[in-house]
């Protein structure tokens, strides 16, 4: 196996790869956008309603952490749709799951960062006569975002990696596209190595960036 053979296989099947990549990016785009907006909004709202919003969110997060993603995916795809009497496109089932998980992750990261704002920085703002709302928007939130940026970046990379689970319920994303190419060409080594290289090329720099952000901004 050489890199040139991997590239040859990718080029020969580029339409299929690009189609799969498009679905992956669409899946991730939905989860990234809605997860960041949803998780961020709920994290902000929890500052003003810690019991009403914070307690249920923590409980849901704990439950989601306890259940493997595959189980969650199949539960959303089969039992829940039967119970509701609906049929939902597997793409949207996967997108919904990734969005829920991303929302919970973003919420958890931001809340931890907000709560872990050094108490003395908030105290001194109080003693300076600054009102609570202003302390939150000008002190706590900016500091929390700085310290959370690295973790948030890593978590979005994880969304990309989790998207391949959609293949198990027939979502035509990148992994499923690779499986189809293997079924046609029998070139398992080249196809799956190429897929691994794709994730390395995309995810590794982002994870390195996340680490750097965490070290610089925390």
């Amino acid at each position: 196996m050489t890199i040139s053979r991997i590239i040859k296989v990718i080029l020969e099947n580029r339409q299929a790869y690009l189609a799969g990549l498009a679905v992956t990016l669409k899946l991730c785009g939905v989860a990234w956008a809605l997860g960041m907006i949803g998780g961020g909004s709920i994290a902000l709202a929890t500052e003003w309603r810690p019991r009403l919003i914070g307690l249920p969110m923590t409980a849901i997060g704990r439950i989601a952490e306890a259940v493997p993603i595959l189980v969650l995916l199949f539960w959303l795809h089969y039992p829940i749709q039967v119970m509701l009497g609906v049929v939902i496109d597997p793409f949207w089932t996967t997108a919904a799951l990734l969005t829920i998980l991303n929302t919970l992750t973003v919420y958890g990261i931001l809340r931890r960062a907000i709560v872990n704002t050094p108490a003395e920085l908030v105290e001194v703002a109080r003693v300076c006569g600054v009102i609570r709302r202003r302390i939150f928007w000008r002190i706590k939130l900016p500091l929390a975002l700085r310290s959370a940026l690295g973790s948030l970046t890593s978590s979005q990379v994880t969304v990309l990696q989790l998207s391949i689970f959609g293949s198990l319920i027939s979502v035509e994303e990148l992994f499923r596209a690779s499986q189809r190419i293997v079924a046609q060409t029998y070139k398992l080594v080249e196809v799956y190595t190429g897929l691994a290289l794709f994730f390395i090329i995309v995810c590794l720099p982002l994870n390195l960036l996340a680490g750097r952000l965490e070290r610089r901004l925390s």
Partner: protein
Amino acid sequence: MHDLEAAELTIVKGAHLVLRDASLQVGCGSLTALTGPSGSGKTSLLRVLAFIDLPTSGVVRLWGKEPSREDDPPTIDSGPIYPLVMYVPQTLALWPHLTIHDNLSFAHNSRFRYDSELVTTSHDLEIDDLLARRPAHLSQGQRQRAALARALVLRPKILLLDEVTSALDDRLANKVWGILREFAKSGAAVLASTHDSSLAEQCDNIYCIRDNMLASRQLCCQEGH
């Protein structure tokens, strides 16, 4: 009536007695020093006087009245005590994501970028060329002066300072002490903790903490502090 008065304060942290039956008075126009060995309870006392922490027992009065703790922050005569009471912690707590100028102007809630008081204070404390920098890019001594400037621009009536000159050389430490004296004379009550006996001797009064007890100047002198 003193601006700041503490009566029979006892401070216990966990199972550890920090201070017992401490009483002190700091009057308007006076600069008072608070001394004591490391770990003697100076910071704990200052935090209680600043109404950040609660004493185990005892009372703290401002201008003869006990502030109400029902609200947050505590209030006196229906108004918040902050920033009439101002506390500069030993850790300084400069906001790291803001420049020094923004640290000062954020606390001051200044509408104008070049507020004259901010400019004057930063010039007096020799930090006017540091205003564009962030705290991480300053030395400890520069950060101390910046934290002090942030407190002074608010013109508090009661100023509590925790070791704000520990990283300054003699010239700057004496200059800062002179600024604090002038600030006190302008109508404030200033209580500053320090390890420097030469600075403490310049004050109108000295309190020292030893063996969990707070003693005034005479007793401090008798015991050789």
